[in-house]
């Protein structure tokens, strides 16, 4: 279970999150949609305390903290329950693909090195990168880096995974495969919050869809509610643009 209440965040005069709340049940897959700059990444970053929100509270599992008053150990506890897949990958530059995936297991979770290696190799296989295990990030293609990032998060088997556009650099084939991975992971009861621009992905994978714009949640509901019967004007407009671009589909 993860719950955000009244999250607020400004950069100077720019109010990026204006009172955002959301509630996600265990094992749910929540997709956040919204135009560029609407605050999606910022919201995920606040949940993982990579950004200090200006106000609001966060609950992960049985742990509730105030965004502003969270202590170091609170933050560490929440971070150990969550994992993050970055929009720009953020792989450890000084570590190979395999080491990137092992790092969290070995250092944070104290998993014995051999076990960690096996699990990391499995995770890399899942994402189709078994042969690239000893390449450094600078030697990987965009899509390969993104997949290492996904493996690094998934291998930790956390309560919650925060995905920030996990398929932006992937070709359609891989999007399908990643979707499968995410679906498989969801079945094990891990909660997922996914920011994505892939509507197909959203429709297929999500239990719940949130549409954000200008720092507020404009509308939320089941995929059907959002995609088929959107209530808000803004949502309708956003979706109509997509539909028009879908016109070119075969």
């Amino acid at each position, binding site marked *: 279970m993860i719950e955000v209440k009244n999250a607020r965040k400004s950069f100077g005069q720019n109010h990026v999150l204006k009172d955002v709340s959301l509630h996600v049940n265990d094992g749910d897959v929540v997709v956040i949609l919204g135009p560029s700059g609407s605050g999606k990444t910022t919201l995920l970053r606040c949940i993982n*305390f990579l950004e*200090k929100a200006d106000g609001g509270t966060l609950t992960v599992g049985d742990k509730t903290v105030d965004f502003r008053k969270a202590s170091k150990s609170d933050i*560490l506890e929440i*971070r150990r329950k969550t994992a993050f897949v970055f929009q720009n990958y953020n792989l450890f530059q000084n570590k190979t693909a395999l080491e990137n995936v092992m790092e969290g297991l070995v250092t944070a979770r104290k998993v014995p090195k051999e076990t960690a290696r096996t699990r990391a190799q499995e995770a890399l296989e899942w994402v189709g990168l078994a042969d690239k295990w000893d390449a450094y990030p600078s030697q990987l293609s965009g899509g390969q880096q993104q997949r290492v990032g996904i493996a690094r998060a998934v291998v930790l088997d956390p309560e919650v995974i925060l995905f920030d556009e996990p398929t932006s650099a992937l070709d359609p084939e891989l999007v399908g495969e990643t979707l499968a991975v995410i679906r498989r992971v969801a079945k094990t009861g891990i909660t997922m919050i996914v920011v994505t621009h892939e509507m197909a992905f959203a429709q297929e994978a999500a239990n719940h869809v949130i549409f954000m714009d200008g720092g507020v949640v404009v509308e939320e509901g089941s995929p059907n509610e959002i995609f088929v019967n959107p209530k808000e004007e803004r949502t309708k407009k956003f979706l109509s643009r997509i539909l028009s671009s879908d016109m070119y589909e075969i």
Partner: protein
Amino acid sequence: MRCAAQRKGRFAVDFFSWQRFADAWPKILPYFSVTLQIVVTAETAGILLGLLIALARMERVPALQQIFAVYVSFMRGTPMLVQLLVVYYGLPFIVQLLTGIDLSGWNKLFFVCVTYGLNQGAFLSEIFRGAIGSIPAGQKEAAWSVGLTNWQAFRRIVLPQAARVALPGVGINLVGLFQETSLACLIGVVDLVGRAQTIGTTTGHLLESYVVIAIIFVAVSVALQTLFRRLDGKLNHSRERGVSAA
């Protein structure tokens, strides 16, 4: 108690007097200009030379690369006083041999500045090399892709970002240079520290003069630090995402 007091009385050497401290100021202060001249010329020359060396070595310019490697090694590896002697005695000889110009009557300060410039160049080149190497390759590639030449890409994109990384190292190096100029008295150029020492030998009391130069140098250090913090603020836009918490 009595014993300690007695002992103190007997052993006391008059190390410090405010009178001598006050007297030292007017004698020492005028020599700041000597120190400043050495530092300014040496640092300017050093930065230019350092950039040149760092670039030549990083771009693996044939011949230059090897020459500079030996050069840096020599400048870093041998005592400064040896370098000063080499320049002071060797340079006029070489110049005379090559161009026929007689340097031997030139101002000694010239040789001091040359030595310090050459030496700074070597040390700074390594600071720059580290800093330039830390800028991701993508930055240079992006510059190339919009049609900048190698040099333009370096000057406008890489250098400003590397400057920030190099800044603390350059700062400490510069503060150190202010103090190191005292070696110039080896060939008779008296700077701040040199002057303090000569006062020490005439009065028999060194501490007061030393405290004077310490105060001057601390002031210099504080001024430089302030300046560098300003610069750092100007150069700092690349990494402000996120908190550094926990």
